[in-house]
């Protein structure tokens, strides 16, 4: 389900880093040796064997990240991102695997489109990519795609991301098809008549600024519906980019009743509130919108207690001219691959809202499990998927530093703490 460039596997020794793998239960200063892309030794004073040696003193070595929600914009939006540029950005952000969304032009709704993306990934992807296919043809919400064939072709999951599956009966059929495909359905929960025309969260800030509100209930109503359908069909589902307290509450209650539901949250929803929209900066316009301080608190708590198991960037590149317009005219979406760790370390870990171990788990094993992928591990015999993090380094987010083809980041000009020094993906050093 993951596709990337084949080729060399690297030899490497990372010496004296704090090895931190919450899944394996490792937290100690150790050396890690990689032979031909496979972790061959973890211990003290390992022989370098002539490998490249990376000095890890004062740094954290962890399982590399998995991003379950990336817009690579291909086919159709190559001016904004490509498989090559998007996976380079992923490598710089510490990711060893990413999942790409199918709301492209054309939509990934046929084996032919999916097949050509997989072929391109084999020659262009710096880090392995999984491609989700659409739930409905053209993401029109009318007819199911040929989900079984798409799964056979290698679809990593199914989603109409960017749009909800509006008709309950169609959503039910898609859940029934999970029994055939075995691949996760990922749902963008938005009740479109409630969110219509919405530019930002409905609340005191939208009332003051005059923007049409996109109320929390537009999300949570759909979350509740989809959880009810999943319970009825006993099928698993994954909730994309949660933003509202009511959604987290509904998810927690459903999980307690045994519904197999996973969910993700983005760095921007974890770090910002609708107050940021006062700037009228189009780089804080996203769907779902930034919500209240109370919603943000619920998302942080949901991530901390595991109700929300994954951090997803929802990396959504946009051309500069598309965002250099009045807020109301700008498209939704911000980039995030290259800033996710720094943003979350700075805004959540450093102030003590979430332990580093929890963040690392939610950025790696959490999303991998949600999609049935092998979680990256720091363990002898495992494929090397590693990230080396400098939690002391402060760096300024600047437009010219991005590997992504787009720079619509909400973090431009900010100084972040926490930097990715080295990324090893599928046994290959892809960054650092």
């Amino acid at each position, binding site marked *: 389900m993951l596709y990337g460039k084949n080729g060399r596997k690297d030899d490497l020794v990372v010496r004296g880093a704090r090895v931190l793998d919450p899944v394996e239960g490792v937290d100690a200063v150790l050396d890690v040796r990689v032979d031909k892309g496979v972790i061959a030794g973890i211990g003290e004073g390992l022989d370098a064997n002539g490998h490249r040696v990376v000095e890890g003193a004062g740094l954290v070595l962890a399982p590399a990240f998995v991003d379950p929600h990336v817009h690579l914009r291909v086919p159709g939006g190559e001016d904004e991102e490509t498989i090559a540029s998007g996976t380079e950005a992923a490598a710089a952000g510490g990711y060893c695997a990413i999942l790409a969304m199918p709301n492209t032009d054309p939509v990934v709704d046929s084996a032919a489109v999916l097949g050509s993306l997989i072929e391109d990934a084999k020659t262009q992807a710096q880090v392995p990519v999984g491609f989700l296919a659409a739930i409905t043809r053209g993401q029109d919400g009318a007819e199911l795609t040929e989900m079984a064939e798409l799964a056979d072709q290698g679809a990593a999951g199914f989603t109409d991301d960017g749009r909800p599956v509006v008709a309950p009966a169609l959503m039910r059929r898609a859940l029934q098809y999970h029994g055939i495909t075995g691949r996760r359905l990922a749902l963008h929960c938005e009740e479109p008549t409630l969110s219509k025309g919405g530019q930002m969260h409905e609340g*005191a800030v939208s009332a003051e600024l005059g923007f049409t509100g996109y109320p929390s209930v537009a999300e949570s109503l759909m979350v509740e519906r989809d959880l009810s359908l999943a319970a009825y069909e006993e099928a698993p589902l994954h909730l994309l980019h949660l933003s509202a307290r009511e959604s987290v509450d509904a998810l927690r209650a459903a999980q307690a009743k045994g519904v197999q539901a996973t969910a993700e949250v983005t760095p921007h929803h974890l770090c910002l509130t609708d107050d940021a929209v*006062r700037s009228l900066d189009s780089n*804080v316009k996203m769907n779902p919108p930034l919500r209240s301080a109370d919603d943000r608190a619920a998302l942080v708590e949901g991530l901390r207690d595991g109700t929300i198991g994954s951090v997803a960037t929802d990396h959504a590149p946009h051309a500069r001219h598309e965002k*250099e317009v009045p807020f109301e005219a700008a498209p939704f979406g911000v980039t995030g691959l290259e800033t996710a760790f720094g943003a979350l370390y700075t*805004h959540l870990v450093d102030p003590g809202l979430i332990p580093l171990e929890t963040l690392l788990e939610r950025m790696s094993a959490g999303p991998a499990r949600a999609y049935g992928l092998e979680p990256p591990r720091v363990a002898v015999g495992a494929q090397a998927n590693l990230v080396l993090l400098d939690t002391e380094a402060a760096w300024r987010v600047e437009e010219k530093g991005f590997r992504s083809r787009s720079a619509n980041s909400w973090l*431009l000009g900010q100084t972040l703490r926490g930097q990715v020094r080295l990324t090893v993906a599928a046994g290959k050093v892809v960054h650092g």
Partner: protein
Amino acid sequence: MGEIHVMREGYLPPKQPPRRHLISIGDLEREDVERLLATAKSFSRSLEREVKKLPTLRGRTVVNVFYESSTRTSSSFELAAKRLSADTMSIKAAGSSVDKGESLKDTALTLGAYDPDVIVIRHPQIGAPELVARYTDAHVVNAGDGKHQHPTQALLDLYTIQDELGRIEGVHVAIVGDVLHSRVARSNVQALALMGAKVTLVGPPPLIPRGIEAMGCEVSHEIGAIADADVVYVLRMQRERMAEGANYVPSLREYTERWGVTPERVRPGQKVMHPGPMNRGVEIDPRVADASEALIEAQVRAGLVVRMAVLYDLLTTGPVPVEAAEPLEVA
């Protein structure tokens, strides 16, 4: 888990150049408003003279860019600039390169190339004036951006209230009607609160935005709530903004029945204001609009002197003497 108060460094908005603009009432402090109103008052005296033109802004250029139709705002900005001897240029979206799909950024860069001192902009989208401010060196005056702000309207309303009632502080203003779609209401709530007036918003629930009390006003859904007010400020029912089937109100008939400002609902001595253009017979009864308590024409007159004061204030530095117009006229 309780509220999270920790947010390291916070969100840093894009840097604004250290130039003065009038984009939102939020850009102003109370003393700025007092200065502007005093300047406007001195201009009103100068306009009583036979020769109304002042040489104050000779050699300055004011560009008016209107992306939305407007009669009173565009004409009063143009006349205000001319009364101060500035060169003016007015651009309307229709018939300009905007029709050819030029982006607002490119239009701003093009206009900026002429080095205007002030760009006055009206645009249907929130945030358009900020964008123009980012890409030109001119002082930017917001003449209305979507549902966001219309600061000179609020200033002229303050001027009218002050002129009529002799004060703003402590005055109770009831704003009636479609607050949701009204930049006039937002600017006025902010401006009145800044000056210490009491504001009550009155209208049907779908037309009062959720959470607006945080701006420092009260909300009522009953028209009876206007009874205590010194001023009844009637908003236009913005039919052009009422999307088909949106069901903000079941019908205009029912709206008028419940929330229309009629002679029976207005107390003797209560002042009535309206930003125009009026829908007579919808939000306001013609008998109210034409009564002597109505300040609607006074608002229009105030629009001219207040906009003169705004242009003057942006283009001159330092404190403005209240009688500035007097010596300037003989220059």
